[in-house]
């Protein structure tokens, strides 16, 4: 498929899209499972975010380099195999670096394979763009994903254990909300973040409408 040349340019938006406007978690709701499952502490969130970012960068880079060689009918299978290879690398690397962390994250490191965000990037971006552009975009997406994990992990650890990164912050009189560390807490905190963003978006839209009607009445009194 021939693409317009404008699509191949590298702009700040290539990088920033993933962090805010197309944030994989808060806007596109992709890769929800690790987002909810491992974000009970900030440390786990950070490790998961970085591991996912590495797999995303490596696999989309390779997909981008091989994009003219992979036949269309088997492309999804090819992408999955590429992703699975890099996840195996990450799996063994984390096991070697910190067995403690590995045990806490459990099967969710291997389950990065099934993160639809990574396959989605390979299919919708890496297979159509050059290497450098893909890397920049993937880095943005990966950082956006990590940021979202930290948003959840921060709130859940603060409310659930009264600490951040293991340092107690709220003092001994604070009664921890244990539910935040348990599965329901993940759903509630993510739901609350989405509510906040929906509210901000609606307020912005209303202001835009109000400004438009105001300028319209000013022009035609």
């Amino acid at each position: 498929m021939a693409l317009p040349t404008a699509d191949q340019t590298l702009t700040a938006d290539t990088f920033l899209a993933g962090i805010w406007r197309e944030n994989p978690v808060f806007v596109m709701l992709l890769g929800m499972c690790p987002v909810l499952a491992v974000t009970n502490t900030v440390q786990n969130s950070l490790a998961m975010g970085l591991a996912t970012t590495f797999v995303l960068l490596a696999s989309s880079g390779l997909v981008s380099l091989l994009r003219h060689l992979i036949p269309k009918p088997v492309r999804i299978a090819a992408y999955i195999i590429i992703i699975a290879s890099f996840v195996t690398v990450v799996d063994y690397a984390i096991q070697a670096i910190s067995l403690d962390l590995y045990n806490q994250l459990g099967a969710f490191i291997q389950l990065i394979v099934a993160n639809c965000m990574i396959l989605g990037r390979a299919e919708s971006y890496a297979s159509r763009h050059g290497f450098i552009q893909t890397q920049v975009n993937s880095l943005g997406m990966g950082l956006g994903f990590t940021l979202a994990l930290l948003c959840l992990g921060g709130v859940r650890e603060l409310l659930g254990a009264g600490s951040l990164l293991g340092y107690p912050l709220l003092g001994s009189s604070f009664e921890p909300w244990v539910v935040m560390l348990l599965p329901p807490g993940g759903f509630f905190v993510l739901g609350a973040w989405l509510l906040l963003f929906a509210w901000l978006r609606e307020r912005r839209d209303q202001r835009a409408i109000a400004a438009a009607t105001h300028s319209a009445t000013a022009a035609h009194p």
Partner: protein
Amino acid sequence: MHPDSLSFIFLNAFLINNFVLALFLGICPFLGVSGKLSTAASMGVATAFVMLVSSLCAWGINALLQLLDLEFLRLICYIAVIASAVQLVEMILKKFAPAIFRSLGIFLPLITTNCAILGLALFQTFKEYNLLQSLIYSLGAGAGFVLAIVLMAGLREKLELADLPSVSRGAAMSLMLAGILSLSFMGFAGLGSGH
């Protein structure tokens, strides 16, 4: 109940450690396809079937890989098996139930990236289940997935009629609902731990 007994394995996967509500596996279809009760039910059954097939294949592959001492290839083999099983379900549905095939749409091929299925294969490997135990485990997990997605779809159909503020419509409300469901499923924790 003994933790290795078949009835405990089933109950554990079905209710106590429900794949969706306690282990957070398979959230994408759980939120994406739970808008209508009938679609949700067929999605649940299709996923449960893929679980069954891929769990049995995964057991065979794991035995083979252990024999050849090639365990680092496990993940790659599992995902390839799951992708083929999804393809199989897709062909069967297209031939025998085209209506269901159309209503599931894009979510059918996406079963491949449903982490509940890969998770099932990995968990049964970690727990070193034998063939019969794996079979029961996958049946329990499949039934648990159907239960969760059908409950969710029922709740969301009721919610359509409720008068919600416009901000909370959509994903945020679904997540809150899932949270409440998950909270109630925590009541099953401890089931089977007494003697």
